[in-house]
């Protein structure tokens, strides 16, 4: 046991004396949360709108006022010629153009049908969908008020309720994702690099010749990264609750438990990488390409898994972060308890066992 503690202390020295790495380990999660929280956002705010309104009547003015009052829109220009529209979009001066037909209110009153054309810059399809959706809602609202005034006999009013995230904040979606990514990065990548570094410098040989058991060497390597990861877990959670305003709606205890489990999964994955590679560069490439990229792309952090082709959905099943992110969403956003994430927990436990068994086998084979 004393042997082990001396060893753990040595590993802490390695980390703390390398100030740059230390800074990255501690600072990266904080920077990432702030970046995702404030800079990189999929929410659409203050979209620039141009208006082509040749009617200038009660109805069009009402709709324009509503658009301008909305926090998603900002009316920047009134144009008078439909030829200008293309010009404005080419210069990127607007994301949405609203075109009213001539004699809008009159047509509406007499025929009961009037037309508005919404033209959006769809070079970014997500933004285009979002802004046209918002504009549609404003128009629909106006239609509602008209109906009430004119007393139409049949009326269907959809009552939309957005569960768990009524304000549609992007933070609700990415906080679990960033958590998964950071823990994977620090545990898997840093552990594998730390073990491979000793192979590279030759100290691993000296350790293997010594009476200390290989499993001890590995466990001692994992302890500091476990501690650093726990620290990061705390900082990310605190930041997301107090700075980004994402609440922990469900069981905090469950959230911490499943996070610790995920840390262990990532550590064992890092161990596996270290048994497969011999240089720090290779270890870094493998962790980066095989673990980090799929975590970002396939775990549902950014792109919804439901929209992927079926074979890719299967592929995403073998990514530990997918299950972790699912569990965190359930606990943090949907407010569920531990009993609701038994499936995810089970899969993560199974993965840990598989990774550890393979790496221990590999590790022993290497000694031959």
């Amino acid at each position: 046991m004393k042997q082990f503690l001396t060893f753990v202390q040595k590993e802490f020295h390695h980390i703390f004396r390398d100030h740059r790495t230390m800074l990255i380990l501690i600072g990266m999660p904080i920077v990432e949360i702030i970046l995702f929280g404030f800079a990189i956002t999929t929410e659409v705010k203050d979209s620039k709108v141009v208006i082509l309104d040749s009617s200038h009547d009660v109805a069009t003015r009402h709709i324009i006022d509503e658009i301008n009052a909305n926090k998603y829109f900002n009316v920047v220009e009134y144009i008078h010629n439909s030829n200008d529209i293309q010009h404005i979009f080419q210069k990127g001066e607007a994301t949405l153009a609203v075109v009213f037909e001539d004699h809008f209110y009159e047509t509406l009153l007499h025929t009961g049908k009037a037309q508005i054309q919404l033209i959006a810059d769809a070079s970014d399809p997500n933004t285009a969908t979002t802004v046209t959706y918002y504009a549609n809602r404003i128009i629909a609202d106006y239609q509602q008020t008209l109906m009430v005034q004119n007393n139409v006999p049949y009326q269907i009013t959809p009552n939309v309720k957005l569960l768990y995230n009524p304000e549609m904040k992007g933070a609700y979606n990415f906080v679990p994702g960033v958590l998964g990514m950071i823990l994977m990065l620090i545990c898997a990548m840093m552990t594998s690099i730390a073990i491979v570094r000793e192979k590279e410098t030759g100290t691993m040989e000296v350790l293997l010749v010594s009476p200390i058991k290989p499993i001890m060497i590995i466990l001692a390597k994992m302890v500091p990264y476990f501690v650093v990861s726990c620290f990061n877990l705390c900082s990310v959670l605190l930041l997301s609750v107090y700075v980004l305003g994402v609440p922990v709606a469900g069981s905090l205890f469950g959230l911490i438990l499943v996070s610790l489990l995920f840390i262990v999964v990532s550590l064992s994955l890092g161990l596996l990488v270290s048994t497969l590679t011999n240089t720090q560069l290779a270890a870094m490439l493998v962790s980066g390409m095989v673990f980090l990229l799929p975590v970002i792309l396939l775990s549902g952090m950014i792109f919804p898994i439901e929209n992927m082709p079926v074979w890719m959905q299967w592929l995403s099943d073998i990514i530990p972060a997918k299950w972790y992110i699912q569990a965190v969403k359930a606990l943090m956003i949907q407010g569920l308890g531990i009993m609701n994430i038994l499936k995810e927990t089970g899969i993560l436990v199974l993965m840990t066992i598989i990774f550890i068994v393979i790496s221990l086998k590999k590790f022993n084979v290497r000694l031959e």
Partner: protein
Amino acid sequence: MEKLQYKETRPRLEKEIEVTDLVKRFGHFTAVDHISFDVEKGEIFGFLGANGAGKTTAMRMLCGLSKPTSGKGKVAGFNIQHEPEQVKKNIGYMSQKFSLYNDLKVWENIRLFAGIYGMADKEIKEKTEILLQKLHFEKERNVLVKSLPLGFKQKLAFSVSIFHTPKVVFLDEPTGGVDPVTRRQFWELIYEAAANGITVFVTTHYMDEAEYCNRVSIMVDGRIEALDSPNNLKTEFEAKNMDEVFQQLARKATRQSD
């Protein structure tokens, strides 16, 4: 400078390394081909051979890092095949790559390795003082190892490898890249260790160093082609120095060096 040569002063004692017909195959390739030799307690045994001759593989087997395909070996009284853990407890090892931690201080390195071999704190403290004094390292106690000059590092690495007073110490090309003065100081440390009863098993590329050994074995293509004291070998091969002996034997090699 007085010529450094081993003088026969100690009584012949028990055997610390006994190897009979040791073989290691990797697939169809026989890296070590039926080698047999004994090393006595307190002896400095030189293990020579060109790159790829099988030196490192043989040494890894003796250290318990690699299992022999066939044959028997005993190190420090323990069977290398069945009792590798006991073997490991009783040997020291210094690899050709630098084997200390650059980002640990001098005393932390000493304490770490002493701790790994299960030494008690009090003993570690006392012996550290003695060692630092002997090496004139008192001032460098709290210095990170990476800022020491190479010669210092190698001497420290050797001292650390015998800090737990093992029965046998394995040195894998310990003086690579070190200047002649430091090499001589290094060999003085080796002599001192041998005089204290530690058996020294050393591989080297420097033929002048081979002359410092009690006995040397020369491996060619996985077999031991010659084994005797440097003087006897020189007479046998009618050579002026060990380098000529080595050249004559190495010429027979058919294996590519790596």
